């Protein structure tokens, strides 16, 4: 059963605001969506079945609102991936080989611990992505939408999405390596 709606703002307001802001990067819109989320939750409170935590349920509602925002806002971001300025040094040379080869991961990528420092580094690197790459990456990797859904939301082709995700991942790899971030296994802690 949900808690008293009069307690929702104190209990969940700031967390929802931060969640919305990290996706939208617009405080005003984020605050609007938090309000919309609470109003929607109030109307749908009898549909909360208690199988998830209360906040998880709110975030689920907020997530749909954020996706609607992406649908409405997609025309505001009309830059094509090829127009995004390439970094000073592209990842590959003229022969298609790595300019700066990836370093070796010192841990098993299937047996790691997500430390707070590492998580913040990932978020920071994601936030530094050019907007069209960031939107695609967040919808695909943070929202866990499949590629068809992302294409519909952003109104781009699957090829275009593939390019955006590819370039986002290359930039993230370099950003994390530059930050000296390596995953840690539970044995190493």
């Amino acid at each position, binding site marked *: 059963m949900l808690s008293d709606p*009069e307690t929702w703002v104190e209990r969940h307001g700031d967390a929802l605001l931060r969640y919305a802001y990290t996706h939208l990067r617009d405080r005003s819109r984020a605050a609007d969506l938090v309000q919309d989320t609470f109003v929607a939750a*109030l109307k749908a409170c009898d549909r909360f079945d208690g199988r998830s935590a209360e906040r998880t349920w709110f975030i689920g509602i907020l997530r749909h609102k954020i996706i609607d925002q992406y649908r409405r806002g997609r025309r505001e971001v009309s830059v094509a991936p090829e127009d995004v300025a390439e970094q000073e040094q592209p990842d590959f040379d003229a022969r298609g080989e790595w300019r700066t080869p*990836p370093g070796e991961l010192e841990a098993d990528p299937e047996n790691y611990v997500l430390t707070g420092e590492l998580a913040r580094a990932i978020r920071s690197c994601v936030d530094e992505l050019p907007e069209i790459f960031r939107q695609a990456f967040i919808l695909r*990797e943070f929202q866990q939408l499949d590629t068809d859904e992302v294409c519909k939301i952003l109104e781009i082709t699957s090829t275009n999405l*593939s390019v955006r995700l590819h370039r986002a991942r290359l930039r993230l790899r370099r950003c994390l390596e530059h930050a000296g971030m390596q995953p840690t296994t539970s044995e190493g802690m």
Partner: protein
Amino acid sequence: MKQIVGTCEETAEAISAALDGPLPWYRRIRMRLHLWACRFCRRYEVQAKWLHAVCEHHCDELADIAGDTEDLTLTAEEREELQARLGGR
């Protein structure tokens, strides 16, 4: 040889695409052949798969991460307005 196994750039694209859905067989084989021969691309595959797994298993945490939102809170006016809407149901 590069026509058969492709370049590192092409392989990196294939590695990324493989995270989002199955590759056509010819592209998958080409990628595997290149990975067999290229330790740098094998490293990139490990890194890309790791990042993908982290996002998959920790998507809510990552979306809620403090970072520059650590001090982000609702203003007093926003709280009042929200309370009014929720309390006046």
